């Protein structure tokens, strides 16, 4: 399905391929250098969090860059995190919010994308525009109204409030990306299914969704990470002890005068694990989807 540049400009790209081989090699090297530098910069804070999570408060301030050695290694941070009984609860809250919101976003978003890309109906274009604009306006601008709405609905300090807001936050981009992918599915496939008398729901779930699995996995990753990491809406809508998420829970170790850095960093280290697991699951899907084979 993919169109190669060579198909579009055969003569020019052949010419380039011949005369620019050394330059291309240099270009590839430069690209790798830039990407490598970016990777280092992106990973460095995480690396700092990881190494300092295994050190005591004194060692962190004495030499923040040092790896935990035999005399500085300690699990005191993890101990103080795990000693707080509600910490497990925060994890469960975060996981519940992330997974339920993710599931809702993917199902609703994919169905909306299918409707917008496949069916002709009144208001189709306006709806598409509405979602497109939604990708451009940050939902946080509406925080005050959202808070009022949640108060009026009596949903303050519930996970439901968080889930609803996160679904709203993620839908526009999901619809936007999935609709674009659905448009690339050959019309013949859908029409063949319709000729066979397959229901629209079955076409959607058995033909369309499997074919856009890479896109769904991408959207899942892009949706899940901001939800997991969000501090704003949990703080605003569900700051109660029973509904705290992990990112909010970590703040318990950040005091006005004293901060238990070992515990903060240990909590953050633990918070990374579930998201990495989820990411691995989706990226496997992504690769499987790509290698599933094209139409022709």
């Amino acid at each position, binding site marked *: 399905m993919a169109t190669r540049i060579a198909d579009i400009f055969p003569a020019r790209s052949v010419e380039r391929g011949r005369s620019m081989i050394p330059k291309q090699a240099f270009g590839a090297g430069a690209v790798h250098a830039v990407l490598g530098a970016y990777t280092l910069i992106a990973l460095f804070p995480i690396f700092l969090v990881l190494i300092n999570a295994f050190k005591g408060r004194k060692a962190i301030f004495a030499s923040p860059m040092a790896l935990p050695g035999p005399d500085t290694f300690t699990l005191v941070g993890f101990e103080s995190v795990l000693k707080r009984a509600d910490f497990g609860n925060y994890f469960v809250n975060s996981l519940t919010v992330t997974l339920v919101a993710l599931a809702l976003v993917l199902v609703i978003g994919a169905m909306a994308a299918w409707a917008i890309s496949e069916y002709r109906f009144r208001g189709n274009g306006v709806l598409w525009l509405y979602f497109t604009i939604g990708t451009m306006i940050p939902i946080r601008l509406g925080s005050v109204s959202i808070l009022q709405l949640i108060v009026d609905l009596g949903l303050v300090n519930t996970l439901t409030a968080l889930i609803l807001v996160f679904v709203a936050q993620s839908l526009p981009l999901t619809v936007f990306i999935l609709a674009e992918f659905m448009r690339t599915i*050959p019309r*013949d496939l859908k*029409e063949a299914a319709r000729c*066979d*008398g397959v229901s629209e729901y079955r076409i959607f779930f058995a033909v369309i969704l499997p*074919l856009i699995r890479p896109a769904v996995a991408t959207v899942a990753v892009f949706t899940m990470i901001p939800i997991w990491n969000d501090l704003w809406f949990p703080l605003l809508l569900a700051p109660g002890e029973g509904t705290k998420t992990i990112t909010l829970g970590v703040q318990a170790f950040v005091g006005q005068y004293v901060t238990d850095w070992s515990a903060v960093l240990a909590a953050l280290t633990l918070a990374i694990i579930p998201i990495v697991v989820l990411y691995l699951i989706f990226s496997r899907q992504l690769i499987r989807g790509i290698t*599933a084979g094209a*139409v*022709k």
Partner: protein
Amino acid sequence: MSELKLNAIGKSYGGVEILRDINIEVADGEFVVFVGPSGCGKSTLLRLIAGLEEISAGELAIGGRRVNELTPAERGIAMVFQSYALYPHMSVYQNMAFGLKLGREGKDAIDQKVRRAAEILQLNHLLERKPAALSGGQRQRVAIGRAIVRDPNVFLFDEPLSNLDAALRVQTRIEIAKLHQDLKATIIYVTHDQVEAMTLASKIVVLNKGRVEQVGAPLELYERPRNRFVAGFIGSPSMNFVPARVEAIADRGITVSLPGGAHATLPCAPSPARVGDEVTVGIRPEHLFEAGGAELQLSGTVEVVERLGDVSYVYFRLADGTALIARAEGTHAAQPGETVSVGSRAAHVHVFDGAGDALPRLDAPAPTRH
């Protein structure tokens, strides 16, 4: 029963009329081919029959029942697409079984149908493969298998051979012809290739610019084209057209003058033509170079000779610049630059009036000799 009736079918998108007043009847078990140049509306017509596009005007009946408002599945049709439209994430077996509803038919019944279709199409050993692991011809057979398992009233084929290479195209063409004989199914087949149309069809519908130009059996279209478009479209290489003028009209035919001063009397009904009319004379390449009894004579300068072994195609030009092709024996001695004289029997010559319509003939056409 699965006869089809198209009654004054029309289709327009916005204000643009794509198809106009299409009247076709397809008998049960008939193999009908829609043929025409690209953009003539043949694929749109097939999609109207399939129910993939809405019919703007007229009535479509399948098995004596109006189906305009029915969905494709309710019409009892199965369609084979040019791109095969196989589901890439399903195996061959799943592809064929996908359209069969589990509720209505038992699992065993579905299995039986799929295996029977696979047997007909020699796909038994490929059932577990994914489409990506199949060759073009195999994918085409799976697409046909998917249609067979549904046991439809009417099979619709949309240019099914266009994505195959030349050798496979001929082979698959023969397989489709055999399939039609075995299944005795009603088939509507769309193609732009007149060879496919001639070889497969029991009835050909020639379409041009959204209108039906002529409907008939392949040889009928070949021997008695109703107008200049059909004459030029059916037959390969296509018919030669020579401008001429009506000189005289008699009961036994009309006499025309040809470029270069030649005259010929052709057995056409005299009624519509008038003396002095500009007409076009059509002669097929295979009817030039006829020895003996050639009532029509032409001569020109040879430009190119294509030697295919069994035949040679001689491309030549008349004095007035009209380019013609003649089919000669493989051993014909014509050389570029030489002057060549060719002739055709009057019975094989077609005459078209200024509007391109064929003048009615007085006699049955003489049998074609090769």
